[in-house]
């Protein structure tokens, strides 16, 4: 047995012990089970319906799917008052308010009605089904790709909030605002979009395209059909809960980019705790406050925490993208240590290497940074740009920020002619210690040799390489954000293999992660309210529909109990169905088997 395996076994034993303790502690909590079935007006069983029990006080929802006979059984939940919702695309939502769950089993006979209003049917469909209507109105593949890459990185495209008829004047003002938030598009695309939006999302157009005939998304299959999905509300409507990470102690940390907060959820107790991240002397908008870069109207972002990871010693490391800093949070002392970023801009995604060093992309300035917590060593490595024009542009950014203190630079952002800066994005560490990263806008990945500093760049045969991850065998998995696919790259052979995601419409996979125990690849269904798993052996996908509309996911992590975690970080948050951001856990195949209700009747 090697040391790592021994450690894992010890860790596993500790986890079991902790769970037993937790179970003993929880014994005092009265629990009950909702079970029952879902039928339509004619009494016909409705399979694959989502049944969601929402506990108001705990701000937590639990969802299972009905089986082929329309039956469901939720896992044991705390006794209390729940709102129970039934949702299946093609039927009207039903919410049974104030259902009292007591010790034992509570039976629910839930009735849903078939939706016949074509407008309502269309509006039930996820954004992924709407976005093709818009893309079909654009005049070239290049514009379609540019729109997909640049106009979907904060929020879904095709959601209710984007399907608005506006005047040419309004659209142009909106493109200016988006440009100042980073969504800079070319003048040619700006010219086409107003008519494209208004034509694509006119009632006549969408009814024809989406309801003649109406095809609901396929039901979940296999272990997705028996998954338990739990969602915890975190933050509030002015939050931008960006990324999350699972701590080895079983708690979940996430960051609120809009409010400079670090959140922690203990899913065993439902307890949330938050800490304000020290702002130092960073103004609202951080180092970008001189440039006209738009913070949202409800923002209090001085440092803007973006991504986070747990270090080998259990401390939580956080990139502060607007503050241009990196923070370390010690859960024991609840204190932060701040590392100023003197060279480079916009600390972004971060990962730890085998030596305990943290590596992170610096998205705006085209760097990768490194901090060695043990020695205090810092490095900032400039990455190659694809063209010398791009290299000049990224070098000019710090000067712009400095100049902005004295002269007005603001007119340059939204009026730019489409900016193809490289934007180093995802990052991960290979088995040999090599530091791999993607350059989102220029179809490249690269490897830094951490010893020599040598950099090797590799073109990807697809657009939008985003948050990449290694599997246990040393192959690199990459989501193609604007290509709607995932790819496997073999550093040994230099070969790529790609798989198109099985989503009807336009999918924009923001991130993926690989469960290194099974090498299952989990992918964000960012535009389709879903998570998607991929088995590399069978090359089969499994789609997990998520219960909340406008669930925009950016990161995935795993707990030791078989749970897959992500966060809903659509921005603006008010576009999300309900009250705000959520932390989400999927446990495949965990739903209890329903009782034989039909036989009893």
């Amino acid at each position, binding site marked *: 047995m090697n040391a790592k395996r021994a450690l894992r076994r010890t860790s596993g034993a500790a986890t079991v012990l902790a769970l037993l303790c937790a179970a003993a502690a929880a014994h005092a909590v009265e629990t009950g089970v909702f079970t029952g079935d879902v039928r339509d007006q004619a009494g016909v069983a409705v399979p694959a319906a989502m049944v969601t029990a929402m506990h108001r006080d705990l701000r937590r929802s639990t969802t299972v799917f009905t089986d082929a006979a329309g039956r469901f059984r939720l896992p044991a939940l705390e006794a209390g008052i729940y709102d129970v919702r039934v949702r299946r695309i093609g039927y009207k939502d039903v919410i049974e308010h104030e259902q009292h769950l007591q010790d034992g089993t509570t039976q629910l006979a839930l009735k849903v009605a078939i939706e016949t209003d074509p407008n309502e049917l269309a509006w039930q469909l996820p954004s992924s089904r709407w976005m093709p209507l818009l893309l079909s109105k654009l005049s070239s593949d290049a514009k379609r790709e540019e729109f997909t890459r640049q106009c979907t990185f904060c929020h879904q495209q095709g959601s209710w909030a984007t399907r608005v008829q506006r005047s040419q004047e309004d659209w142009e003002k909106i493109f200016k605002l988006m440009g100042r938030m980073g969504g800079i598009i070319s003048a040619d695309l700006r010219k086409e979009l107003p008519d494209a939006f208004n034509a694509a999302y006119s009632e006549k157009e969408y009814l024809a395209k989406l309801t003649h005939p109406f095809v609901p998304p396929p039901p979940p299959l296999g272990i997705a059909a028996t998954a338990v999905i739990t969602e915890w509300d975190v933050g509030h409507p002015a939050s931008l809960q960006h990324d999350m990470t699972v701590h080895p102690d079983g708690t979940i940390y996430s960051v609120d980019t809009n409010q400079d907060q670090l959140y922690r959820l203990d899913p065993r107790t439902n307890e949330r705790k938050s800490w304000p991240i020290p702002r130092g002397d960073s103004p609202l908008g951080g180092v970008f406050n001189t440039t006209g870069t738009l913070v949202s109207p*409800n923002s209090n972002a001085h440092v803007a925490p973006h991504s986070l990871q747990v270090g080998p010693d259990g401390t939580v490391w956080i990139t502060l993208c607007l503050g241009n800093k990196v923070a370390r949070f010690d859960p024991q002392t609840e204190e932060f240590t701040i590392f100023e970023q003197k060279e480079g801009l916009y600390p972004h995604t971060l990962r730890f290497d085998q030596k305990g060093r943290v590596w992170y992309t610096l998205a705006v300035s085209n760097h990768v940074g490194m901090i060695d917590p043990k020695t205090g060593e810092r490095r900032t490595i400039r990455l190659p740009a694809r063209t010398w024009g791009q290299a000049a542009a990224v070098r000019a950014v710090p000067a712009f920020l400095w100049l902005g203190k004295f002269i007005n630079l603001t007119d340059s952002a939204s009026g730019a002619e489409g900016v193809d800066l490289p934007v180093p994005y995802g990052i991960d560490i290979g088995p040999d210690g090599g530091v791999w990263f993607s350059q989102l806008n220029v179809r490249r990945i690269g490897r830094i040799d951490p010893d020599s500093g040598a950099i090797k760049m590799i073109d990807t045969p697809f657009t939008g390489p985003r948050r990449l991850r290694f599997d246990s065998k040393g192959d690199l998995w990459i989501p193609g954000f604007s290509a709607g696919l995932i790819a496997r790259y073999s550093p040994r052979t230099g070969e790529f293999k790609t798989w198109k995601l099985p989503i009807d419409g336009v999918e924009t996979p923001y991130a993926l992660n690989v469960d290194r125990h099974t090498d299952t690849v989990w992918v964000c269904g960012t535009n389709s309210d879903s998570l998607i798993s991929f088995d590399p052996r069978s090359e089969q996908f499994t789609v997990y529909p998520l219960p909340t509309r406008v669930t925009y996911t950016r990161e995935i992590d795993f707990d030791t109990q078989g749970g897959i975690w992500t966060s809903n970080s659509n921005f603006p948050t008010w576009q999300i169905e309900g009250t705000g951001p959520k932390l989400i856990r999927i446990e495949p195949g965990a739903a209890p088997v329903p009782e034989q209700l039909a036989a009893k009747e």
Partner: protein
Amino acid sequence: MAVRRRLLASVWLACVSAACTPRPPQQPAQPPAAPPAAAVSGLNVTLMWDAPVDLDLYLTDPTSETVYFANNPSRTGARLLHDARCRHVVGAAEGPFFEQAQVEDPRSGRYRIGVDFIDACGAQDAAVSFRVVVDYAGTRRETTGIVRLEEFQAIVLEFELSRLRSGGSLTLEEVER
């Protein structure tokens, strides 16, 4: 080649436009005078300015939803009653120009006012003076400021509507920053 040219052009243009639009060499004109208090319904927020440019008013309510030109009305019932655009101000005899938001039945809690200078409408104004006036139940709060082209001032004024006692009426208090 086209991309390179575009990038170079954008960098060069940014430098040139920056050099050509320095921060105001002199203070812009004084903000317009406040309108006389009038009997208004609900909560009213007015943004006023004199220069022939497009400023935008943002009013964020206690639910964190913002009413502004692209989200009007808000889902919580706030309305932008008057939205000044370039076509309204260009060629107009003179200011003041204004945007006005109203919440007929405001809820208690904190409100935030932001101002954005989105478009110079062809004018040379690189900075504009403005006034923001809040009226509620006979109480007025106001502030003035200067906003630069394409600058969004997220917090021009914050105020609370709160009840001093249970069942009492809401009162308006400015939040100190």
